[in-house]
């Protein structure tokens, strides 16, 4: 039987040799694999821009775990990085059962595997979300002008750029002022490089919203600044959206966790999608050692 390949589905692999055949989904994707997926159907390259601990990994994990736990119209359609999602979700499931988080795995040698893949189906349309998992130190270095955006091709390539505001940081009176500074530094760096490029989209994502919502002082602090910060982001991109997310909130949190809204934004069609390939990730030789170290740890 001969059939046209379905959008977003890659034709089965054909290997003539007798070498061991790996199972799908064992590792994060490298740029070549991400490009292969993009060539097979509609895709969205997503980059979270936020410092270490701002909730990037939790957002990634929750996008997957929500599919397992909540029945909705958006359907899980597969993942080439299923095991990586499961590894992320595992620690959080254990914590919910009262176990201590598992100890971190030994760091691997740095490689280019940096992207999660989540295929979702909405109203018959299948879309591949390719989510870049970059260490937070990168964004601090970017904000501090230690590295250029050109050295992070995934940020230039992204269809969806999300600027993360760390709710836990807002709750800390000694650190909260840095939130606005970091956000404006990032906005300035993006603007200097004419990002986001036409066709890509921008969001201001407030993470750990549960920590803000349950503390009147933090809530008041944020409400006084939220409108202006959102307006500043819209200067960079007039259509920028603003999402509050409580991805790691306990089940008792009375509000919606916002992950559904974030997912809707990720799935929405950008103005123009040409699906160029994902470029290799090459640190410049003069990248600061702490960043290289952070990258090695994450990889």
């Amino acid at each position, binding site marked *: *039987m001969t059939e046209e390949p*379905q959008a977003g*589905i*890659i*034709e*089965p*692999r054909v290997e003539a040799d*007798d070498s*061991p*055949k*790996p*199972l*799908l*989904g*064992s590792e994060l994707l490298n740029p070549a694999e991400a490009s292969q997926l993009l060539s097979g159907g509609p895709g969205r390259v997503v980059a979270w821009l936020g410092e270490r601990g701002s909730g990037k990994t939790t957002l990634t994990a929750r996008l997957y775990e929500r*599919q*397992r*736990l*909540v*029945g909705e119209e958006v*359907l*899980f*359609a*597969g*993942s080439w990085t*299923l*095991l990586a999602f*499961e*590894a992320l979700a*595992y*620690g959080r*499931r*254990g*914590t*919910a*059962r*009262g*176990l*201590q*988080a*598992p*100890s971190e*795995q030994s760091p691997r040698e740095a490689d280019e595997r940096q992207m999660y893949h989540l*295929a979702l*189906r909405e109203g018959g349309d*299948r879309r591949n979300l390719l989510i870049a998992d970059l260490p937070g130190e990168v964004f601090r270095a970017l904000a501090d002008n230690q590295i250029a955006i050109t050295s992070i091709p995934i940020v230039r390539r992204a269809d969806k750029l999300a600027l993360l505001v760390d709710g836990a940081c807002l709750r800390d009176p000694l650190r909260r002022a840095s939130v606005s500074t970091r956000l404006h530094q990032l906005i300035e760096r993006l603007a200097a490089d004419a990002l986001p490029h036409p066709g890509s989209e921008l969001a201001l994502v407030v993470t750990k919203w549960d920590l803000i919502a349950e503390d009147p002082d933090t809530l008041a602090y944020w409400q006084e600044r939220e409108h202006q910060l959102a307006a500043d982001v819209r200067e960079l991109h007039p259509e920028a959206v603003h999402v509050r997310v409580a991805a790691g909130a306990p089940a008792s949190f009375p509000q919606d966790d916002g992950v559904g809204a974030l997912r809707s934004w990720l799935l929405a069609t950008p103005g123009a999608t040409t699906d160029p390939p994902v470029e290799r990730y090459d640190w410049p030789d003069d990248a600061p050692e702490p960043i290289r170290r952070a990258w090695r740890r994450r990889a």
Partner: protein
Amino acid sequence: MRFMLLGEQATGKSSLLVALYGALVNRRIEDLRIVRTIDDVEFLSRGLLAFGRQESLRRTEIDSDARLLMELARADQLVTLDIPDRSGELLKHMLDARVWDSGLLAQIRLAEGAMLFLRADQLIAEASPPPPPASFGESGEPFAETVAVQAPPAPPWSPALMPADARAVDLLQSLLDRRSEPLPLAIIISAWDSVSEPAPSPRDWLSESVRLLDQYLESNAERLPHAVFGVSAQGGDFSSGLAGELIRADPWDRAYLVGPDGLRETLASPILWLLDSKT
């Protein structure tokens, strides 16, 4: 017709084969009749004896090459049924080691349909994890202080720790990665007697209780046309004892199957559905 059995250990693959063989050989299935038994059926006879004694089956040995191979008549159609019963340990080892078993890979390329086995009671248990450990020292005794129990650390993650729904998705998408033809798939929810009454239809139960797999199947229905069946090959839980008329019933009469829409059907329904899917 070559159909595969996919399932990890103790998911009911062999139990269904034994109960199905019992029903066929004792002529309990109107739509199918044995014309000729081609292969050794000693393991099936042994299984029926065990069910007669109200004992569960022993796990298929890891290197076992057991299979159901026979010619069946369906109306005026002659069907050769070939169902190898690969051990669940082999599949588990493959998923954990992340490398295809060459025998299974060859079967996947040749199969005209498959049955995927999941245990209802295992899925129910995974969906209801135990509560966090309680505090102790709250008894009011003198000098007692409220001390939280030191939570044990979770073991480091490995593929073996994935829940059953994620492992099923892992298997199916790896399978589609290696096969270009659509694969009709009968989802067999075994230990169906453990689903609380009033039991929903197997289709609705999967949708409500095993969401990740259900969504994956729905999203990939063109390549994985599927139907969901609930099966109790033993007819009940032997460990807690059978009740009432079940004690006197023969094993093939105790066993029962619920079709996708919740109605009782014969144990051959998944096979008939796979045959119809192929034609």
